[in-house]
Protein backbone atom coordinates (compact mmCIF):
# COMPACT_ATOMS: atom_id res chain seq x y z
CA UNK A 1 0.00 0.00 0.00
CA UNK A 2 2.71 2.49 0.99
CA UNK A 3 4.84 1.29 -1.87
CA UNK A 4 1.95 1.96 -4.20
CA UNK A 5 1.40 5.46 -2.85
CA UNK A 6 5.11 6.19 -3.05
CA UNK A 7 5.23 5.06 -6.65
CA UNK A 8 2.26 7.20 -7.60
CA UNK A 9 3.72 10.15 -5.71
CA UNK A 10 6.91 10.03 -7.76
CA UNK A 11 4.83 9.78 -10.94
CA UNK A 12 2.82 12.83 -9.88
CA UNK A 13 5.93 14.90 -9.26
CA UNK A 14 7.24 13.90 -12.70
CA UNK A 15 3.97 14.89 -14.36
CA UNK A 16 4.04 18.28 -12.63
CA UNK A 17 7.64 18.79 -13.73
CA UNK A 18 6.72 18.00 -17.34
CA UNK A 19 3.83 20.43 -17.15
CA UNK A 20 6.04 23.19 -15.76
CA UNK A 21 8.62 22.65 -18.49
CA UNK A 22 6.13 22.51 -21.34
CA UNK A 23 4.32 25.59 -20.08
CA UNK A 24 7.54 27.51 -19.53
CA UNK A 25 8.77 27.03 -23.08
CA UNK A 26 5.35 27.43 -24.63
CA UNK A 27 4.96 30.81 -22.96
CA UNK A 28 8.49 31.94 -23.91
CA UNK A 29 8.24 30.90 -27.52
CA UNK A 30 4.85 32.46 -28.04
CA UNK A 31 4.93 35.73 -29.96
CA UNK A 32 4.79 38.90 -27.89
CA UNK A 33 6.06 39.79 -24.44
CA UNK A 34 4.58 41.10 -21.20
CA UNK A 35 5.33 44.69 -22.09
CA UNK A 36 3.94 44.83 -25.59
CA UNK A 37 0.49 43.53 -24.86
CA UNK A 38 -1.60 46.62 -24.47
CA UNK A 39 0.28 49.58 -23.15
CA UNK A 40 2.68 51.40 -25.37
CA UNK A 41 5.91 52.25 -23.61
CA UNK A 42 9.14 53.79 -24.79
CA UNK A 43 11.63 51.25 -26.07
CA UNK A 44 14.36 52.10 -23.52
CA UNK A 45 11.99 51.60 -20.56
CA UNK A 46 10.95 48.29 -21.99
CA UNK A 47 14.60 47.29 -22.36
CA UNK A 48 15.24 48.29 -18.76
CA UNK A 49 12.34 46.19 -17.59
CA UNK A 50 13.41 43.21 -19.68
CA UNK A 51 16.88 43.55 -18.20
CA UNK A 52 15.50 43.87 -14.70
CA UNK A 53 13.42 40.69 -14.94
CA UNK A 54 16.20 38.75 -16.64
CA UNK A 55 14.19 38.35 -19.82
CA UNK A 56 17.19 39.09 -22.05
CA UNK A 57 19.12 36.09 -20.76
CA UNK A 58 19.26 32.90 -22.85
CA UNK A 59 16.06 30.89 -22.38
CA UNK A 60 17.86 27.97 -20.73
CA UNK A 61 19.34 30.31 -18.13
CA UNK A 62 15.92 31.77 -17.45
CA UNK A 63 14.54 28.26 -17.11
CA UNK A 64 17.23 27.24 -14.63
CA UNK A 65 16.73 30.43 -12.63
CA UNK A 66 12.99 29.89 -12.56
CA UNK A 67 13.37 26.32 -11.26
CA UNK A 68 15.81 27.49 -8.59
CA UNK A 69 13.35 30.11 -7.50
CA UNK A 70 10.52 27.59 -7.55
CA UNK A 71 12.30 25.18 -5.24
CA UNK A 72 12.34 27.97 -2.65
CA UNK A 73 8.57 28.29 -3.09
CA UNK A 74 8.87 31.64 -4.85
CA UNK A 75 6.74 32.05 -7.96
CA UNK A 76 8.39 35.33 -8.86
CA UNK A 77 7.05 38.85 -9.46
CA UNK A 78 4.03 39.53 -11.63
CA UNK A 79 4.86 41.50 -14.78
CA UNK A 80 1.55 43.30 -14.91
CA UNK A 81 0.71 43.89 -11.28
CA UNK A 82 2.67 45.32 -8.42
CA UNK A 83 2.00 42.30 -6.21
CA UNK A 84 4.05 39.13 -6.45
CA UNK A 85 2.56 36.00 -7.97
CA UNK A 86 2.55 34.40 -4.51
CA UNK A 87 0.44 37.24 -3.18
CA UNK A 88 -1.97 37.19 -6.11
CA UNK A 89 -2.51 33.46 -5.79
CA UNK A 90 -2.76 33.65 -2.00
CA UNK A 91 -5.75 35.95 -2.54
CA UNK A 92 -7.42 34.24 -5.45
CA UNK A 93 -6.78 30.55 -4.77
CA UNK A 94 -8.95 30.33 -1.61
CA UNK A 95 -11.82 31.89 -3.56
CA UNK A 96 -11.60 29.29 -6.33
CA UNK A 97 -11.09 26.51 -3.82
CA UNK A 98 -14.23 27.51 -1.98
CA UNK A 99 -16.20 27.76 -5.22
CA UNK A 100 -14.95 24.35 -6.37
CA UNK A 101 -15.63 22.81 -2.97
CA UNK A 102 -19.23 23.96 -2.98
CA UNK A 103 -19.67 22.81 -6.56
CA UNK A 104 -18.30 19.35 -5.74
CA UNK A 105 -20.51 19.15 -2.66
CA UNK A 106 -23.58 20.01 -4.73
CA UNK A 107 -22.58 17.54 -7.44
CA UNK A 108 -22.13 14.67 -4.99
CA UNK A 109 -24.97 15.68 -2.70
CA UNK A 110 -27.48 15.61 -5.54
CA UNK A 111 -25.86 13.15 -7.94
CA UNK A 112 -25.21 10.23 -5.59
CA UNK A 113 -28.67 9.90 -3.99
CA UNK A 114 -30.45 10.45 -7.30
CA UNK A 115 -28.30 7.84 -9.03
CA UNK A 116 -28.74 5.27 -6.25
CA UNK A 117 -32.51 5.74 -6.14
CA UNK A 118 -32.77 5.54 -9.93
CA UNK A 119 -30.81 2.28 -9.95
CA UNK A 120 -32.77 0.73 -7.09
CA UNK A 121 -36.11 1.66 -8.63
CA UNK A 122 -35.00 1.14 -12.20
CA UNK A 123 -37.59 1.42 -14.97
CA UNK A 124 -40.01 3.31 -12.75
CA UNK A 125 -40.84 7.00 -12.63
CA UNK A 126 -38.20 7.41 -9.90
CA UNK A 127 -35.72 6.36 -12.59
CA UNK A 128 -37.08 7.91 -15.78
CA UNK A 129 -37.87 11.40 -14.51
CA UNK A 130 -34.56 12.23 -12.77
CA UNK A 131 -32.54 10.55 -15.53
CA UNK A 132 -34.26 12.59 -18.24
CA UNK A 133 -33.61 15.74 -16.23
CA UNK A 134 -29.99 14.62 -15.85
CA UNK A 135 -29.70 14.21 -19.62
CA UNK A 136 -30.85 17.81 -19.99
CA UNK A 137 -28.36 18.86 -17.32
CA UNK A 138 -25.49 17.23 -19.19
CA UNK A 139 -26.33 19.11 -22.36
CA UNK A 140 -26.42 22.47 -20.59
CA UNK A 141 -22.84 23.72 -20.42
CA UNK A 142 -21.84 26.08 -17.62
CA UNK A 143 -21.75 29.07 -19.92
CA UNK A 144 -25.41 28.52 -20.80
CA UNK A 145 -26.61 27.50 -17.36
CA UNK A 146 -24.77 30.32 -15.58
CA UNK A 147 -26.41 33.21 -17.45
CA UNK A 148 -29.79 31.48 -17.28
CA UNK A 149 -29.56 31.03 -13.51
CA UNK A 150 -28.41 34.63 -13.20
CA UNK A 151 -31.32 35.79 -15.33
CA UNK A 152 -33.99 33.79 -13.48
CA UNK A 153 -32.81 33.97 -9.86
CA UNK A 154 -30.85 37.19 -10.05
CA UNK A 155 -32.71 39.47 -12.43
CA UNK A 156 -36.30 38.19 -12.42
CA UNK A 157 -36.73 36.82 -8.92
CA UNK A 158 -34.10 39.03 -7.36
CA UNK A 159 -33.05 36.39 -4.82
CA UNK A 160 -29.33 36.68 -5.41
CA UNK A 161 -26.78 39.17 -6.67
CA UNK A 162 -25.88 38.71 -10.29
CA UNK A 163 -22.21 39.33 -9.63
CA UNK A 164 -19.64 39.66 -6.87
CA UNK A 165 -18.28 37.50 -4.08
CA UNK A 166 -19.04 39.28 -0.83
CA UNK A 167 -21.81 37.59 1.16
CA UNK A 168 -22.54 33.89 1.60
CA UNK A 169 -25.52 34.09 -0.75
CA UNK A 170 -23.12 35.07 -3.53
CA UNK A 171 -21.81 31.50 -3.49
CA UNK A 172 -25.14 29.96 -4.43
CA UNK A 173 -25.52 30.74 -8.12
CA UNK A 174 -21.89 30.14 -9.18
CA UNK A 175 -21.65 26.91 -7.19
CA UNK A 176 -24.90 25.56 -8.64
CA UNK A 177 -23.86 26.61 -12.14
CA UNK A 178 -20.83 24.32 -11.95
CA UNK A 179 -22.29 21.74 -9.58
CA UNK A 180 -25.51 20.91 -11.41
CA UNK A 181 -23.80 19.67 -14.57
CA UNK A 182 -21.61 17.35 -12.50
CA UNK A 183 -24.58 16.29 -10.39
CA UNK A 184 -26.21 15.13 -13.61
CA UNK A 185 -23.10 13.26 -14.74
CA UNK A 186 -22.55 11.69 -11.31
CA UNK A 187 -26.19 10.61 -11.15
CA UNK A 188 -25.81 8.78 -14.45
CA UNK A 189 -22.51 7.19 -13.50
CA UNK A 190 -23.82 6.18 -10.08
CA UNK A 191 -26.90 4.61 -11.63
CA UNK A 192 -24.79 2.66 -14.10
CA UNK A 193 -22.35 1.46 -11.46
CA UNK A 194 -25.09 0.44 -9.05
CA UNK A 195 -27.01 -1.42 -11.74
CA UNK A 196 -23.89 -3.26 -12.80
CA UNK A 197 -23.40 -4.54 -9.26
CA UNK A 198 -27.11 -5.17 -8.59
CA UNK A 199 -27.13 -7.53 -11.58
CA UNK A 200 -24.29 -9.64 -10.19
CA UNK A 201 -24.78 -13.16 -8.90
CA UNK A 202 -23.64 -12.29 -5.38
CA UNK A 203 -26.68 -10.06 -4.89
CA UNK A 204 -28.80 -13.16 -5.44
CA UNK A 205 -26.69 -14.97 -2.84
CA UNK A 206 -27.36 -12.19 -0.34
CA UNK A 207 -31.09 -12.31 -1.09
CA UNK A 208 -31.06 -16.07 -0.59
CA UNK A 209 -29.48 -15.50 2.82
CA UNK A 210 -32.49 -13.42 3.83
CA UNK A 211 -30.67 -10.07 3.77
CA UNK A 212 -33.20 -7.22 3.58
CA UNK A 213 -33.08 -5.11 0.43
CA UNK A 214 -31.98 -1.96 2.23
CA UNK A 215 -28.92 -3.72 3.58
CA UNK A 216 -28.22 -5.25 0.18
CA UNK A 217 -28.03 -1.75 -1.30
CA UNK A 218 -26.01 -0.22 1.51
CA UNK A 219 -23.58 -3.04 2.30
CA UNK A 220 -23.39 -5.27 -0.76
CA UNK A 221 -23.83 -2.83 -3.63
CA UNK A 222 -22.61 0.61 -2.64
CA UNK A 223 -18.90 -0.20 -2.38
CA UNK A 224 -18.63 -1.66 -5.85
CA UNK A 225 -21.28 0.58 -7.33
CA UNK A 226 -19.49 3.76 -6.36
CA UNK A 227 -16.13 2.74 -7.84
CA UNK A 228 -16.90 4.34 -11.24
CA UNK A 229 -17.91 7.54 -9.45
CA UNK A 230 -14.60 7.63 -7.62
CA UNK A 231 -12.65 7.24 -10.84
CA UNK A 232 -14.78 9.98 -12.36
CA UNK A 233 -13.79 12.43 -9.62
CA UNK A 234 -10.38 13.05 -11.23
CA UNK A 235 -11.81 14.23 -14.56
CA UNK A 236 -14.62 15.96 -12.66
CA UNK A 237 -12.14 18.10 -10.80
CA UNK A 238 -10.44 19.11 -14.05
CA UNK A 239 -13.88 19.94 -15.40
CA UNK A 240 -14.79 21.98 -12.36
CA UNK A 241 -11.61 23.96 -12.83
CA UNK A 242 -12.42 24.80 -16.44
CA UNK A 243 -15.97 25.54 -15.31
CA UNK A 244 -14.53 28.04 -12.88
CA UNK A 245 -12.90 29.96 -15.77
CA UNK A 246 -16.34 30.60 -17.21
CA UNK A 247 -18.24 31.06 -13.97
CA UNK A 248 -15.71 33.47 -12.51
CA UNK A 249 -16.06 35.53 -15.67
CA UNK A 250 -19.86 35.47 -15.63
CA UNK A 251 -20.30 36.28 -11.95
CA UNK A 252 -17.17 38.44 -11.69
CA UNK A 253 -15.57 36.43 -8.95
CA UNK A 254 -11.97 37.34 -8.00
CA UNK A 255 -10.74 33.74 -8.32
CA UNK A 256 -7.80 32.01 -9.87
CA UNK A 257 -9.61 31.13 -13.09
CA UNK A 258 -10.01 34.76 -14.01
CA UNK A 259 -6.39 35.48 -13.11
CA UNK A 260 -5.30 32.64 -15.35
CA UNK A 261 -7.26 33.73 -18.40
CA UNK A 262 -6.32 37.37 -18.10
CA UNK A 263 -2.66 36.61 -17.38
CA UNK A 264 -2.45 34.49 -20.51
CA UNK A 265 -3.92 37.36 -22.52
CA UNK A 266 -1.42 39.77 -20.98
CA UNK A 267 1.54 37.42 -21.39
CA UNK A 268 2.26 37.74 -17.70
CA UNK A 269 4.75 34.86 -17.84
CA UNK A 270 5.20 34.29 -14.15
CA UNK A 271 1.53 34.54 -13.31
CA UNK A 272 0.63 32.10 -16.10
CA UNK A 273 3.22 29.65 -14.83
CA UNK A 274 2.14 30.12 -11.24
CA UNK A 275 -1.51 29.35 -11.95
CA UNK A 276 -0.67 26.40 -14.19
CA UNK A 277 1.61 24.92 -11.51
CA UNK A 278 -1.08 25.29 -8.90
CA UNK A 279 -3.70 23.71 -11.16
CA UNK A 280 -1.38 20.87 -12.08
CA UNK A 281 -0.59 20.21 -8.42
CA UNK A 282 -4.29 20.25 -7.60
CA UNK A 283 -5.23 17.85 -10.37
CA UNK A 284 -2.40 15.39 -9.77
CA UNK A 285 -3.07 15.38 -6.03
CA UNK A 286 -6.71 14.70 -6.70
CA UNK A 287 -5.83 11.87 -9.09
CA UNK A 288 -3.52 10.40 -6.48
CA UNK A 289 -6.27 10.53 -3.86
CA UNK A 290 -8.71 8.93 -6.27
CA UNK A 291 -6.30 6.05 -6.88
CA UNK A 292 -5.82 5.50 -3.17
CA UNK A 293 -9.55 5.52 -2.48
CA UNK A 294 -10.06 3.07 -5.33
CA UNK A 295 -7.56 0.66 -3.84
CA UNK A 296 -9.25 0.97 -0.47
CA UNK A 297 -12.67 0.27 -1.98
CA UNK A 298 -11.63 -2.59 -4.21
CA UNK A 299 -9.88 -5.43 -2.39
CA UNK A 300 -8.92 -7.07 -5.68
CA UNK A 301 -6.66 -4.14 -6.57
CA UNK A 302 -5.07 -4.29 -3.12
CA UNK A 303 -4.30 -7.94 -3.67
CA UNK A 304 -2.68 -7.47 -7.05
CA UNK A 305 -0.46 -4.77 -5.72
CA UNK A 306 1.06 -6.61 -2.76
Amino acid at each position, binding site marked *: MFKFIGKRLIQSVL*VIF*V*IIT*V*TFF*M*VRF*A*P*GDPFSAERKMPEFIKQRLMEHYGLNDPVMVQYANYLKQLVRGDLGPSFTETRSVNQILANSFPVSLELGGWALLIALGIGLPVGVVAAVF*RNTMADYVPMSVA*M*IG*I*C*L*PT*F*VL*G*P*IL*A*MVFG*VWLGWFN*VSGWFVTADRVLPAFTIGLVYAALIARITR*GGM*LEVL*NQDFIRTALAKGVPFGRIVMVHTLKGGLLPVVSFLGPAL*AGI*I*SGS*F*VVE*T*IFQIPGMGRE*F*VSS*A*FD*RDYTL*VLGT*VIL*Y*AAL*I*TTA*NLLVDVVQVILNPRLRFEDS
Partner: protein
Amino acid sequence: MLPSRVSPSSEKLPDLGVDLDAIESGTSLWKDAWLRLRKNRLALMSFWVLVFMVLFCFLGPFFTGQDYRTNNLEKTLLSPQAGHLFGTDDLGRDQLTRVMVGGRVSLGVGIIATTVSLLIGVAYGATAAYVGGKADAVMMRFVDVLYALPFTIFVILLMTLFERSIVLLFVVIGAVEWLTMARIVRGQVLSIKQQEFVEAAVSLGYSSGRIILRHIIPNVLGVVVVYATLTVPAVMLLESFLSFLGLGVQPPMPSWGSLIKLGADNIQLYPHLLVIPAVFFSLTLFSLNFLGDGLRDALDPRSSKD
Protein backbone atom coordinates in the same frame (compact mmCIF):
# COMPACT_ATOMS: atom_id res chain seq x y z
CA MET B 1 -16.56 -26.78 -37.80
CA LEU B 2 -14.87 -28.58 -40.64
CA PRO B 3 -14.34 -26.44 -43.69
CA SER B 4 -13.61 -29.39 -45.98
CA ARG B 5 -17.12 -30.60 -45.41
CA VAL B 6 -18.83 -27.28 -45.70
CA SER B 7 -17.36 -25.69 -48.78
CA PRO B 8 -17.99 -28.23 -51.54
CA SER B 9 -21.68 -28.50 -50.76
CA SER B 10 -22.22 -24.79 -50.44
CA GLU B 11 -23.51 -24.47 -54.01
CA LYS B 12 -26.23 -26.95 -53.30
CA LEU B 13 -27.46 -25.23 -50.15
CA PRO B 14 -31.23 -25.20 -49.91
CA ASP B 15 -32.96 -21.85 -50.08
CA LEU B 16 -32.99 -20.68 -46.50
CA GLY B 17 -35.25 -17.73 -47.22
CA VAL B 18 -32.55 -15.27 -46.24
CA ASP B 19 -30.42 -12.91 -48.23
CA LEU B 20 -27.07 -14.70 -48.18
CA ASP B 21 -25.32 -11.82 -49.91
CA ALA B 22 -26.48 -9.46 -47.20
CA ILE B 23 -25.15 -11.74 -44.49
CA GLU B 24 -21.90 -12.16 -46.37
CA SER B 25 -21.17 -8.46 -46.70
CA GLY B 26 -22.27 -7.72 -43.19
CA THR B 27 -25.03 -5.34 -44.19
CA SER B 28 -27.54 -7.18 -42.06
CA LEU B 29 -25.88 -5.72 -38.99
CA TRP B 30 -26.55 -2.23 -40.31
CA LYS B 31 -30.02 -3.13 -41.49
CA ASP B 32 -30.86 -4.48 -38.04
CA ALA B 33 -29.35 -1.44 -36.43
CA TRP B 34 -31.41 0.85 -38.63
CA LEU B 35 -34.58 -1.06 -37.75
CA ARG B 36 -33.81 -0.79 -34.06
CA LEU B 37 -32.94 2.88 -34.37
CA ARG B 38 -36.23 3.60 -36.10
CA LYS B 39 -38.07 2.17 -33.12
CA ASN B 40 -36.23 4.58 -30.82
CA ARG B 41 -38.48 7.64 -31.10
CA LEU B 42 -36.14 9.97 -29.23
CA ALA B 43 -33.15 9.08 -31.40
CA LEU B 44 -35.18 9.44 -34.57
CA MET B 45 -36.50 12.82 -33.47
CA SER B 46 -32.94 13.88 -32.67
CA PHE B 47 -31.89 12.83 -36.14
CA TRP B 48 -34.50 15.07 -37.76
CA VAL B 49 -33.65 17.95 -35.43
CA LEU B 50 -30.06 17.67 -36.60
CA VAL B 51 -31.10 17.57 -40.24
CA PHE B 52 -33.11 20.72 -39.62
CA MET B 53 -30.16 22.39 -37.85
CA VAL B 54 -27.79 21.64 -40.70
CA LEU B 55 -30.22 22.91 -43.36
CA PHE B 56 -31.13 25.95 -41.24
CA CYS B 57 -27.54 26.97 -40.62
CA PHE B 58 -26.00 26.19 -43.97
CA LEU B 59 -28.82 27.25 -46.31
CA GLY B 60 -30.61 29.76 -44.08
CA PRO B 61 -28.27 32.74 -44.58
CA PHE B 62 -29.08 32.74 -48.32
CA PHE B 63 -32.72 33.51 -47.53
CA THR B 64 -32.55 36.10 -44.76
CA GLY B 65 -31.34 38.78 -47.11
CA GLN B 66 -29.01 40.01 -44.37
CA ASP B 67 -25.28 39.91 -43.86
CA TYR B 68 -23.76 38.71 -40.62
CA ARG B 69 -20.93 41.29 -40.78
CA THR B 70 -22.67 44.51 -41.73
CA ASN B 71 -23.01 46.86 -38.79
CA ASN B 72 -26.03 49.13 -38.61
CA LEU B 73 -25.57 51.44 -35.69
CA GLU B 74 -29.04 52.92 -36.08
CA LYS B 75 -30.67 49.60 -35.34
CA THR B 76 -28.73 48.17 -32.40
CA LEU B 77 -30.20 45.78 -29.85
CA LEU B 78 -33.65 45.60 -31.41
CA SER B 79 -36.18 43.16 -29.99
CA PRO B 80 -37.46 40.39 -32.24
CA GLN B 81 -39.72 41.93 -34.90
CA ALA B 82 -40.68 41.69 -38.54
CA GLY B 83 -37.54 41.98 -40.64
CA HIS B 84 -35.39 40.89 -37.71
CA LEU B 85 -37.10 37.79 -36.35
CA PHE B 86 -34.47 37.31 -33.65
CA GLY B 87 -33.78 41.05 -33.23
CA THR B 88 -30.36 42.62 -33.69
CA ASP B 89 -27.14 42.57 -31.69
CA ASP B 90 -25.13 45.37 -30.13
CA LEU B 91 -23.79 46.45 -33.53
CA GLY B 92 -27.16 46.30 -35.26
CA ARG B 93 -26.44 43.03 -37.10
CA ASP B 94 -29.34 40.71 -37.83
CA GLN B 95 -29.34 38.15 -35.03
CA LEU B 96 -31.16 35.49 -37.10
CA THR B 97 -28.41 35.51 -39.68
CA ARG B 98 -25.76 35.52 -37.00
CA VAL B 99 -27.33 32.53 -35.25
CA MET B 100 -27.30 30.68 -38.58
CA VAL B 101 -23.71 31.57 -39.37
CA GLY B 102 -22.69 30.85 -35.77
CA GLY B 103 -24.29 27.45 -36.19
CA ARG B 104 -22.23 26.89 -39.34
CA VAL B 105 -19.09 27.57 -37.34
CA SER B 106 -20.10 25.46 -34.33
CA LEU B 107 -21.34 22.51 -36.39
CA GLY B 108 -18.46 22.83 -38.83
CA VAL B 109 -15.84 22.84 -36.09
CA GLY B 110 -17.67 19.93 -34.47
CA ILE B 111 -17.60 17.84 -37.60
CA ILE B 112 -14.13 18.72 -38.88
CA ALA B 113 -12.36 18.47 -35.53
CA THR B 114 -14.12 15.17 -34.86
CA THR B 115 -12.93 13.89 -38.21
CA VAL B 116 -9.39 14.95 -37.38
CA SER B 117 -9.50 13.21 -33.99
CA LEU B 118 -11.15 10.22 -35.59
CA LEU B 119 -8.42 9.75 -38.17
CA ILE B 120 -5.61 10.12 -35.64
CA GLY B 121 -7.36 8.03 -32.99
CA VAL B 122 -8.38 5.16 -35.23
CA ALA B 123 -5.01 4.91 -36.92
CA TYR B 124 -3.17 5.08 -33.61
CA GLY B 125 -5.44 2.72 -31.69
CA ALA B 126 -5.73 0.16 -34.46
CA THR B 127 -1.97 0.14 -35.04
CA ALA B 128 -1.27 -0.35 -31.35
CA ALA B 129 -3.73 -3.19 -31.09
CA TYR B 130 -2.69 -4.88 -34.33
CA VAL B 131 1.05 -4.69 -33.69
CA GLY B 132 0.62 -5.60 -30.03
CA GLY B 133 3.43 -6.45 -27.63
CA LYS B 134 6.00 -3.87 -26.59
CA ALA B 135 5.04 -1.29 -29.21
CA ASP B 136 1.46 -1.43 -28.01
CA ALA B 137 2.51 -0.97 -24.40
CA VAL B 138 4.69 2.03 -25.24
CA MET B 139 2.04 3.64 -27.44
CA MET B 140 -0.68 3.29 -24.83
CA ARG B 141 1.58 4.50 -22.05
CA PHE B 142 2.10 7.66 -24.08
CA VAL B 143 -1.66 8.11 -24.26
CA ASP B 144 -1.89 7.60 -20.49
CA VAL B 145 0.70 10.31 -19.91
CA LEU B 146 -1.16 12.75 -22.17
CA TYR B 147 -4.36 11.91 -20.35
CA ALA B 148 -2.84 13.02 -17.07
CA LEU B 149 -2.21 16.51 -18.43
CA PRO B 150 -4.77 19.22 -17.70
CA PHE B 151 -5.72 19.78 -21.31
CA THR B 152 -8.21 22.59 -21.02
CA ILE B 153 -5.47 24.66 -19.46
CA PHE B 154 -3.10 23.98 -22.34
CA VAL B 155 -5.82 24.65 -24.85
CA ILE B 156 -6.49 28.02 -23.25
CA LEU B 157 -2.77 28.75 -23.19
CA LEU B 158 -2.34 27.86 -26.84
CA MET B 159 -5.35 29.89 -27.88
CA THR B 160 -4.27 32.96 -25.91
CA LEU B 161 -0.56 32.88 -26.65
CA PHE B 162 -0.61 32.18 -30.35
CA GLU B 163 -2.41 33.95 -33.12
CA ARG B 164 -5.95 32.73 -32.89
CA SER B 165 -7.13 31.14 -36.08
CA ILE B 166 -9.74 28.59 -36.91
CA VAL B 167 -7.03 26.17 -38.09
CA LEU B 168 -5.30 26.32 -34.71
CA LEU B 169 -8.71 25.66 -33.16
CA PHE B 170 -9.11 22.46 -35.21
CA VAL B 171 -5.63 21.28 -34.38
CA VAL B 172 -5.95 22.00 -30.68
CA ILE B 173 -9.35 20.35 -30.29
CA GLY B 174 -8.41 17.39 -32.47
CA ALA B 175 -5.29 16.90 -30.38
CA VAL B 176 -7.39 16.63 -27.23
CA GLU B 177 -10.13 14.38 -28.51
CA TRP B 178 -8.15 11.68 -30.29
CA LEU B 179 -6.93 10.11 -27.05
CA THR B 180 -10.20 8.53 -26.05
CA MET B 181 -10.85 7.39 -29.59
CA ALA B 182 -7.47 5.66 -29.70
CA ARG B 183 -8.22 3.84 -26.46
CA ILE B 184 -11.66 2.72 -27.56
CA VAL B 185 -10.51 1.50 -30.98
CA ARG B 186 -7.59 -0.37 -29.46
CA GLY B 187 -9.83 -2.09 -26.92
CA GLN B 188 -12.32 -3.05 -29.59
CA VAL B 189 -9.72 -4.39 -32.01
CA LEU B 190 -8.07 -6.40 -29.24
CA SER B 191 -11.31 -7.99 -28.15
CA ILE B 192 -12.29 -8.81 -31.72
CA LYS B 193 -8.87 -10.26 -32.43
CA GLN B 194 -9.45 -12.75 -29.65
CA GLN B 195 -12.95 -13.69 -30.68
CA GLU B 196 -13.62 -17.08 -32.12
CA PHE B 197 -14.75 -16.03 -35.55
CA VAL B 198 -11.44 -14.30 -36.16
CA GLU B 199 -9.55 -17.32 -34.91
CA ALA B 200 -11.71 -19.40 -37.19
CA ALA B 201 -10.85 -17.13 -40.11
CA VAL B 202 -7.15 -17.41 -39.26
CA SER B 203 -7.37 -21.18 -39.04
CA LEU B 204 -9.13 -21.25 -42.39
CA GLY B 205 -6.04 -19.65 -43.81
CA TYR B 206 -7.47 -16.29 -44.79
CA SER B 207 -4.91 -13.55 -45.35
CA SER B 208 -4.60 -10.91 -42.69
CA GLY B 209 -5.70 -8.27 -45.22
CA ARG B 210 -8.94 -10.13 -45.75
CA ILE B 211 -9.41 -10.58 -42.02
CA ILE B 212 -8.94 -6.89 -41.36
CA LEU B 213 -11.24 -5.91 -44.20
CA ARG B 214 -13.93 -8.47 -43.61
CA HIS B 215 -13.98 -8.97 -39.87
CA ILE B 216 -12.18 -6.30 -37.94
CA ILE B 217 -13.24 -3.14 -39.76
CA PRO B 218 -16.97 -3.91 -39.87
CA ASN B 219 -16.93 -4.71 -36.17
CA VAL B 220 -14.92 -1.68 -35.14
CA LEU B 221 -16.97 0.61 -37.35
CA GLY B 222 -20.00 0.46 -35.10
CA VAL B 223 -18.09 1.63 -32.06
CA VAL B 224 -16.36 4.33 -34.07
CA VAL B 225 -19.64 5.67 -35.44
CA VAL B 226 -21.18 5.75 -31.99
CA TYR B 227 -18.21 7.40 -30.39
CA ALA B 228 -17.86 9.93 -33.21
CA THR B 229 -21.49 10.94 -32.73
CA LEU B 230 -20.73 11.53 -29.08
CA THR B 231 -17.46 13.36 -29.84
CA VAL B 232 -19.14 15.98 -32.00
CA PRO B 233 -21.06 17.50 -29.05
CA ALA B 234 -17.93 17.33 -26.88
CA VAL B 235 -15.98 19.23 -29.54
CA MET B 236 -18.75 21.77 -30.00
CA LEU B 237 -18.78 22.27 -26.26
CA LEU B 238 -15.05 22.92 -26.21
CA GLU B 239 -15.26 25.32 -29.14
CA SER B 240 -18.12 27.26 -27.58
CA PHE B 241 -16.34 27.29 -24.26
CA LEU B 242 -13.32 28.88 -25.91
CA SER B 243 -15.45 31.28 -27.92
CA PHE B 244 -17.30 32.25 -24.77
CA LEU B 245 -13.99 33.20 -23.17
CA GLY B 246 -13.13 35.12 -26.34
CA LEU B 247 -10.51 32.56 -27.35
CA GLY B 248 -12.31 30.80 -30.17
CA VAL B 249 -13.34 32.16 -33.53
CA GLN B 250 -12.65 35.86 -33.84
CA PRO B 251 -15.18 38.60 -34.56
CA PRO B 252 -16.93 39.48 -36.72
CA MET B 253 -17.28 35.74 -37.28
CA PRO B 254 -19.84 34.48 -34.74
CA SER B 255 -20.14 31.07 -33.16
CA TRP B 256 -22.87 29.92 -30.82
CA GLY B 257 -20.45 30.26 -27.94
CA SER B 258 -19.65 33.92 -28.67
CA LEU B 259 -23.35 34.69 -29.27
CA ILE B 260 -24.14 33.20 -25.85
CA LYS B 261 -21.38 35.35 -24.38
CA LEU B 262 -22.99 38.47 -25.84
CA GLY B 263 -26.32 37.34 -24.41
CA ALA B 264 -24.80 36.65 -21.01
CA ASP B 265 -23.41 40.19 -20.94
CA ASN B 266 -26.84 41.65 -21.69
CA ILE B 267 -29.21 39.45 -19.70
CA GLN B 268 -30.55 42.29 -17.63
CA LEU B 269 -32.11 44.11 -20.58
CA TYR B 270 -32.06 41.82 -23.61
CA PRO B 271 -32.70 38.24 -22.49
CA HIS B 272 -33.57 37.12 -26.04
CA LEU B 273 -29.92 37.58 -26.99
CA LEU B 274 -29.07 34.79 -24.53
CA VAL B 275 -32.11 32.57 -24.84
CA ILE B 276 -32.19 32.12 -28.60
CA PRO B 277 -28.59 30.97 -29.23
CA ALA B 278 -28.69 28.97 -25.97
CA VAL B 279 -31.76 27.07 -27.17
CA PHE B 280 -30.21 26.33 -30.56
CA PHE B 281 -26.95 25.23 -29.01
CA SER B 282 -28.51 23.07 -26.29
CA LEU B 283 -31.01 21.50 -28.67
CA THR B 284 -28.18 20.49 -30.97
CA LEU B 285 -26.17 19.02 -28.09
CA PHE B 286 -29.24 17.10 -26.87
CA SER B 287 -29.93 15.70 -30.27
CA LEU B 288 -26.35 14.60 -30.81
CA ASN B 289 -26.23 12.91 -27.41
CA PHE B 290 -29.59 11.18 -27.84
CA LEU B 291 -28.69 10.09 -31.35
CA GLY B 292 -25.35 8.75 -30.08
CA ASP B 293 -27.07 6.84 -27.29
CA GLY B 294 -29.64 5.51 -29.72
CA LEU B 295 -26.94 4.42 -32.16
CA ARG B 296 -25.09 2.64 -29.37
CA ASP B 297 -28.23 0.77 -28.40
CA ALA B 298 -28.96 -0.04 -32.02
CA LEU B 299 -25.49 -1.22 -32.95
CA ASP B 300 -24.80 -3.15 -29.78
CA PRO B 301 -28.02 -4.77 -28.60
CA ARG B 302 -26.23 -6.29 -25.64
CA SER B 303 -25.51 -2.92 -24.11
CA SER B 304 -29.00 -1.59 -24.70
CA LYS B 305 -30.35 -2.71 -21.35
CA ASP B 306 -29.76 -0.14 -18.62
